[in-house]
């Protein structure tokens, strides 16, 4: 599981980790039943405070993305799939908000923006 942490980011580190893991689950690079590293192992790998990893894992548990099994570790939850979709949509929503804000700054209206998205989608599909 390759994660990376960006300190100057603005997004709190625990959230970066939680989002990346949600991403991996959404992209099926982590599937239900896969184990994610113990807190202290991930903390050592990423060279960050274990409390930060703990907070990320708590967030993931809360969101139903992972489940902690007593004494035997933390695993991607079976109910991963329907939630994965919701998570995927949430991640895209955040990106869409950024895009809309930037379009606003650049004075590109919605019409033009949608047109542009369609154009890019067609280009990429070719």
């Amino acid at each position: 599981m390759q994660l990376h942490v960006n300190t100057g980011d603005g997004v709190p580190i625990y959230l970066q980790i939680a989002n990346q893991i949600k991403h991996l689950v959404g992209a099926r690079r982590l599937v239900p039943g896969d184990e994610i590293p113990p807190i202290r192992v991930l903390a050592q790998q990423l060279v960050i405070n274990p409390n930060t990893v703990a907070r990320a894992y708590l967030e993931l548990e809360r969101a139903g993305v992972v489940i902690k099994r007593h004494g035997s570790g933390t695993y991607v939850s079976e109910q991963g799939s329907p939630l994965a979709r919701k998570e995927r949509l949430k991640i895209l929503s955040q990106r869409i908000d950024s895009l809309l804000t930037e379009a606003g700054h650049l004075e590109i209206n919605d019409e033009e923006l949608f047109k542009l998205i369609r154009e890019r989608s067609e280009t990429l599909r070719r």
Partner: protein
Amino acid sequence: MSAPETANAVEIQGLTRKFKDKLALDNVSLRISRGRVFGLAGENGAGKTTLIKHILGLLKAERGTVRVFGLDPVARPAEVLKQIGFLSENRDLPAWMRVDELLRYTGAFYPTWDTTLAEQLRERFCLDPSARVKTLSRGESAKAGLLLALAFRPDLLLLDEPSSGLDPIVRRDILEAIIRTVADEGRTVIFSTHLLDEVERVADEIAMMFHGKIVLSGPLDEVKENHYRMVLRFETPLAVEPKIPGALSIRGSGQEWTLICNGGRQQTIEAATRLGGRVVAEETPSLDEVFIARAASNVSAPKA
């Protein structure tokens, strides 16, 4: 008679210290809870090492009090020092000793020295037992120093600029060793540094020092959440810096100005609007930016 179990590893109240005319510490108060990683940030000369010397009992408080695990380090040096693993910035290690001799020698001072742990650390740090200390590279010296501070399992790990002068690879090794300690043993760690991205990765709580004063302290999350970087755009270019109350620092020119602020978001936006500006971007600043902004404004934040 040992002190009752305290929740705080270190408690400093109103500590003041003068060297000739210079106020090295100016009414410093800090509370560091057990089991936390505490980052002490500040540029060289801010007072970090002076503060650390008080914790070690090397300096006696001129005004104010210092307690380590409930004890006065000046009055009870033996009891306090046996609980502190200290890595000094200078890495004063006896140049002529071999690494294995150094381990045996240091181990003799500490009843809690764990020979197995010392050996594990020596291997992990790739230190040749037969090498003389004077032949060690800077990075190896730092690791040797850290080994000595860790091997007797002290309750408090006190590190003065542990990454000073080291390349990124060694810095990472050292940070990793510190994290391992925290993860495995829930020890209290205090480290001073001017490398703020290390603080961001590793600290639970932080304090920033500037000219002997604490200008900021609190849980890292809260400090970050309480600061923001705002970019303002003005219709007409401004010839001089806009005066925005609540901004710790302002830089820019013409139409675009960037502020670093702490709290009072609504007032800042209103002030900007009154001057003809609007907010075009708002983000959480890095700790570096917060530090520079605070140093520039030299304003103390209300305690978190």
